[in-house]
C-alpha cells in the first residue's frame, strides 16, 4: 500500500464522515432539493473527464472521453440550475415573522 494510496484513503474516510455529519434533521420539504443538490456535486466527475480527454489519442478514448465530458457537464449544469429552481420556492414575503418561525423548525 503506497503512501499516496494511504493519503487518498484518509481523505476518503474523512469525506464520508463529513457526508454523514452534514445531513442533520432536515425538514422533509428539503429532501428533494437536497437530493438534487448532492446530485449536482457529483458532477465534479467533469474534472476527471477533462483529464482523460486531455490525454486521449486513439479514437476510442476520444469518443469515450467526449461522451464522459458531455455527460458530466449535463450533470453539473442541469443539476445546479434545477436545484436553484426548486429552492427559489423558498423565497418569502418581505415582512414575514412566521417565516422566521418556520426557519427555526428547519
Amino acid at each position: 500500500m503506497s503512501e499516496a494510496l494511504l493519503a487518498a484513503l484518509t481523505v476518503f474516510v474523512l469525506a464520508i464522515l463529513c457526508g454523514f455529519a452534514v445531513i442533520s434533521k432536515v425538514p422533509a420539504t428539503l429532501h428533494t432539493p437536497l437530493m438534487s443538490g448532492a446530485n449536482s456535486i457529483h458532477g465534479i466527475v467533469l474534472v476527471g473527464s477533462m483529464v482523460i480527454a486531455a490525454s486521449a489519442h486513439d479514437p476510442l478514448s476520444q469518443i469515450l472521453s467526449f461522451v464522459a465530458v458531455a455527460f458530466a457537464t449535463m450533470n453539473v449544469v442541469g443539476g445546479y440550475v434545477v436545484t436553484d429552481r426548486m429552492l427559489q420556492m423558498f423565497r418569502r414575503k418581505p415582512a414575514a415573522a412566521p417565516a422566521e418561525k418556520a426557519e427555526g423548525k428547519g
Partner: protein
Amino acid sequence: MDSLDIVVRLAWLVGAAGFVIGLMRMNSPATARNGNLLSAAGMAIAIGGTAVLLAARGDAGVTAWIIILAGIALGGGLGLYTARTVKMTAMPQLVSLFNAVGGGAAALIAIDDYIRLASAQTLLPNSIPLEVSVPTVLDIVIGGITFTGSLIASGKLMGVIPGKPIKVPGGQLVTVALAAVVAVAAIYLWLGNVSVPILFVIIAASLTFGVTMVLPIGGADMPVVISLLNSFTGTAVAMAGFVLGNDVLIIAGALVGASGAILTKLMADAMNRSVINIMIGGFGGGEGTVAAGGPEGGSVRSLGVDDAAIQLAYAQNVIIVPGYGLAVAQAQHAVRELADLLEQRGVNVSYAIHPVAGRMPGHMNVLLAEANVPYPQLREMDDINPEFERADVALVVGANDVTNPAARRAGTPVSGMPILDVDHARSIIVIKRSMGRGYAGIDNELYVNPKTGMLFADAKQGLADLVAAVKAL
C-alpha cells in the same frame, strides 16, 4: 510539484470545501438557496482550475480541446435547456436523468483508463496493480448500475415506462445470476489477469442489473430509489478519483455517497418504509384509486358547494390540507385563488404540509410555491397540528392517507405514520372525486366522521366552484 500544481490542488480543495459548506447550508430553508450557489461556486473553481492546469501543461492537443469544449457545449446546453424548461412536478425525473449521466461519466472514466492500461501493458498478467483494478471494477459496476437504473426510474416517473411494478421474467434468479457473473469476473481481474473482454462482461452485467433492479419497484417509491442511486453515483465518482488519483473526485464523491445514503434513509422514514423493503418492493406502487363504497360502520355525509362556501367564508381560521389529488388535478392555482379570496374577507388561512403528502417529499411545497403561495403560510406538520383544535374548518383537498386516523392504531398499512390531526378541527370539508382510496389502499375513517362533509369533485373544478360560490355570497 511546481507552483502551478499547488495552486490547482488548492483550488480543488477550495472547491471541495464549497461542496461541504454548501450542503450544510442546504439543511435549512433560510440558507438553502445560498448553499446551492456556494456549492456551484466551488464547482466553478474546481473546473476552472482543471482547465488552467490542462492549458498550462499543454499536454492537451487541439483535438483534445475540441473534444472537451464540444462536450461541454453539448452537455451544458442540454442540461441548461432541460433544467430551465421542466415543469415543477417533473423535477424528480430530471434529477434522476442527471444522476444517470453522472454515473455514466464515472464509469466511462474507469473503462477508458482500463483499456489504455491494458493496451499499454499488452496484456501481461499482474501488470495492473490491485490499487487500480479494485477501484476500476467498483467504479464500472456501481456506475453502470446507476446509469441504467436511473434511466428506468426517470422513465417510470415520466410515464414512458409504466409506473406499476414490472415483474422481470425469472425475477430474483436473474438478479442473483447477474451478481454472480460480476463477482466472478471481478475476482478474475483482481487476481491480476488483464482482459478487456472480461471488462465488457462486467459492463454488460452491471447495465442489465440496473434495469432488473429498478423495474420491479413501484412508481410511488421512485423518490427513494433515485436518492439511493444518487448516493451510488457519489461512490462511483469517488472510485474514479482513486483510479485517477485525484483528491477532489474522492472528496466530492465520498461526500455525496455518504450524505446521499443518510438522505435516502430520511426519505424512506418519512413515508415510514424501510429502504430494503422498498428495494424488494413493498406495498409501493399501488396507486389504487379504486372506487370503493364508504367504509363499513359509518355513513358518509356529502356536502353542497354553497354550504361549503358559507362555512369557509364565515370562519375565523381555515387550515387547508393539500394532498396528492391536488397535484394530479394541477389545482395549486385554484386553491391559492380561494385562499386569497378568504384572506380578503379576513379569514386567516394556512396550509398544513404533511412531509409525504403527494408522491415526493416536498411535493406540496413545490406545487404551492409554484402558485406563489407565500412560504410563511406553508406550515410543517408538527408546527400546525396543535392548531387544528382552533381551526373552524379544515379543508382537505385530494389528501387521504396523510389524514387517516387509522394511522394512530396499530395493524393498518399506515400505522405509525405521523398524520395531520385534521379530525381535531371543528368541522372538516373534503374535496375528492369519490370514496376512492389513496396510496396505501385503505379506507379513511376521517370521511365517516360526523364532523366531515364530502365535496365530491375533481380538486380543480371543486375549488373553482367554491371560489365562485364565495364571491357570490
